[in-house]
């Protein structure tokens, strides 16, 4: 097959869907690879690097789209690019169902196949294809770094000749992959770390990183949804949770919020009052910004100051570490590709992973959730 690598067009996107290493591995599997010129620029990968790895460099995105049987990308294609794309070809990307609904006709009409990196099932086996994890981990890690940069204080405890500096307090809301990474890094940096999540199982994980778990008293399985994800919680729970966060947040120097519920807007956990109760000079890093944010005031992709509190809503944190982010993403993508297009039984829709990640199969919707959305849209 001819595999195409595009230069990403989205704002702030510096990642690339394949690194020269992955290109080499693809070629080893007897595929050929076409790469758009300066596709790797953002990740400091030069065209020469790609060439050396064996890829063909093409001048424009159009050339790539028209040649490739399968396109690897980080973000879904622009409508222009979609127009150029070959019929029956495949796109592997970080698809978000709600975003793709608009372009659904382009996909189905052209008999395209969509393989979604965001829908790879979170099974043990699929972990090396789990780009959601690898990129969330970056986001969580980076959130503590920018948090430490935003605040006007030290992170660790220091007892110096000029007085004792108390350690910063960091609160992590939502201890999924990103949250755990944030906990780990904040702990490393010497802060006192608190974490909160609706799923009670997470408590042990939080404590396994040496942080304190802030608990809402309730029946134990309130927020536990399917497949290890969270679901929406009852009103009563929300109230309790609100009070708990309110009590906690006013002493915090950094709040990193990562709470997400799949295919739903992010729950609002921090309202304006809570923000106002925080110490001036503190910071909120809202990793849920792209889904509306966990903080009422978050503006997606913007860093704003409210009442001397920094609210950072940048959704592209992984892109700020393009080097490692591209490396991990492309490895994940390659692993998934290898899994789906294996020699023995390619494109086996019986397979949990293949089936789960296949949003659209040659123009046919293969994802229940997407179908539901479409049905809702149509009605």
């Amino acid at each position, binding site marked *: 097959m001819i595999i195409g690598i595009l230069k990403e067009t989205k704002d702030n996107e510096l990642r690339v869907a394949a690194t020269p290493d992955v290109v080499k591995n693809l070629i080893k599997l007897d595929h050929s690879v076409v790469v758009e010129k300066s596709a790797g620029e953002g990740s400091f990968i030069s065209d020469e690097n790609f060439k050396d790895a064996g890829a063909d460099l093409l001048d424009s995105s159009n050339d790539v789209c028209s040649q490739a049987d399968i396109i690897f990308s980080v973000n879904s294609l622009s409508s222009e690019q979609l127009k150029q794309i070959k019929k029956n070809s495949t796109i592997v990307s970080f698809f978000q169902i709600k975003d793709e609904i608009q372009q659904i006709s382009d996909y189905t009409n052209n008999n395209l196949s969509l393989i979604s990196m965001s829908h790879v099932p979170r*099974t*043990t*086996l699929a*972990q*090396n294809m789990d780009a959601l*994890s*690898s990129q969330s*981990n970056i986001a969580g890690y980076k959130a503590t770094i920018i948090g430490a940069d935003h605040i006007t204080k030290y992170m660790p405890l220091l007892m110096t000749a000029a007085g004792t500096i108390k350690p910063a307090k960091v609160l992590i809301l939502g201890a999924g*992959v990103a949250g*755990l*990474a944030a906990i*780990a890094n904040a*702990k*490393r940096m010497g802060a006192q770390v608190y974490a909160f999540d609706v799923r009670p199982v997470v408590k*042990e*994980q939080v*404590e*396994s*990183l*040496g942080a304190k778990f802030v608990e809402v008293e309730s029946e134990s399985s309130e927020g536990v949804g399917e497949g290890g994800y969270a679901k929406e919680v009852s009103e009563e729970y929300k109230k309790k949770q609100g009070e708990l966060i309110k009590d906690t947040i006013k002493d915090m120097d950094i709040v990193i919020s990562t709470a997400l519920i799949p295919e739903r807007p992010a729950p609002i956990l921090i309202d304006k009052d809570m923000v106002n109760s925080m110490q001036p000079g503190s910071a909120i890093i809202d990793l849920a910004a792209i889904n509306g944010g966990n903080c009422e005031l978050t503006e997606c992709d913007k860093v704003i100051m409210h009442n001397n509190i920094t609210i950072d809503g940048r959704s592209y944190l992984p892109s700020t570490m393009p080097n490692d982010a591209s490396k991990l993403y492309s490895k994940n993508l390659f692993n998934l590709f290898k899994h789906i297009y294996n020699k023995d039984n390619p494109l086996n829709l019986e397979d949990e992973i293949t089936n789960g990640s296949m949003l659209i199969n040659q123009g046919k919707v293969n994802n229940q959730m997407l179908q539901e959305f479409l049905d809702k849209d149509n009605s």
Partner: protein
Amino acid sequence: MIDFLYLISAICFIYGLKMLSHPKTARNGNIIASLGMLIAIIATVSLGTNLDLKMIGIAMLIGAIIGGFFATKVEMTQMPQLVAIFNGFGGGASALVASSEFLKYGADSSMFLIISITLSVLVGTLTLTGSFIAFGKLQGLISTKPITFPGQQIFNALLAITMFTAAYFIPTYGINAFYIIVILSGLLGILLVIPIGGADMPVVISLLNSYSGIAAAMTGFVLVNSQPSAGNALIICGSLVGASGMILTQIMCKGMNRSLANVIFGAVGGEVEASSGEGKEVNIKSYSTEEAAMIFDAAEKIIVVPGYGLAVAQAQHAVREVAEFLEDKGKTVLYAIHPVAGRMPGHMNVLLAEANISYEQLKDLDEINPEFEDCDVAIVLGANDVVNPAARSDQNSPIYGMPILNVDKARTVIINKRTMNTGFAGVQNELFGYENSIMVFGDAKDMLIKLLSDLKEL
């Protein structure tokens, strides 16, 4: 001269026992002790007057053949019952000697002699029958469940009282009273062992071993008047074995966290989980940290496999301490980091970095997997899925196809977790039952701390 030989043989026994209690010298200790026995036998043969050497030679040959045959032929797993039965014969021999002495002097011996003979016969016979019951239990001929009946203790006490009364009446009733003693001691031996559960048998055997020493010592008291030097030799060696056996029994009880009384009378308390590895119900081997420490002591290359459990236990510092101790002993220690160990990407890195374990020691899957083959011990600390061989072999397993750490390739795998529960993926791990696998149960931190102190005590 012969007296000196006895003294030398006693010294051999003392040194032999001493050496037997240290791993490095144990084997030589055994040889020295057997040398002592040889010297004692030679001394006795040259000491005795009117010995029918041919008869003795025949008897010794028979005994040696039987003993030697079983000692070499029996399977390793049946060792404990073999020791039990050998022990029974020892006790029996003492009882026989004492009986024979009784027959020689008859009922009108001195008080001292009668007491000695009674005790010797009592303890000797009891050891004989008790050991046979222990053998039966271990061999599965008798139910390993504790066998009890109401009023057992009282009955035993009555037995003992009857016997001492009989002993008191020996001067009056002579041989008949003596028979009563023999029979009742035999019965007592059975009754004492029957109510004890199979898992406690090693302790019982050790106790009976101590008894057989006491029986020999008592026989020594019987003999000391007619054959002072032989008598003294019996007294010394017998009491040596009696006392050291008692201590060993105590140590074993302590190792099981129980008192001796609890072992002997605790039948009502029921079976404890088979913790000595002899139990056949589960096919895992559960070891104590002390035993694990011995395994580490003999190892040269050790690979540590941390998992989520290590993080839960917050045992990162403890593992570094153990590793550093082993390194100081000249061993190589590496850490095998599975890419998905823990609950977040890089969980193990965060954990081990906190304990300041140097990056050089951390090896990822590809680097470490070839190393397991020539590694003596792989110690799995709270990891489960990432070492599950089902990922390699069992097509139906939900984790089939995931690359795992091939710990099973190591000479010995020590697995520490708290229970037999599954890990994140919720699948059982057949590794735990492998031939070369050993489980050490407990919280990872507690276990490592204990392991360290056991390592230091070796």
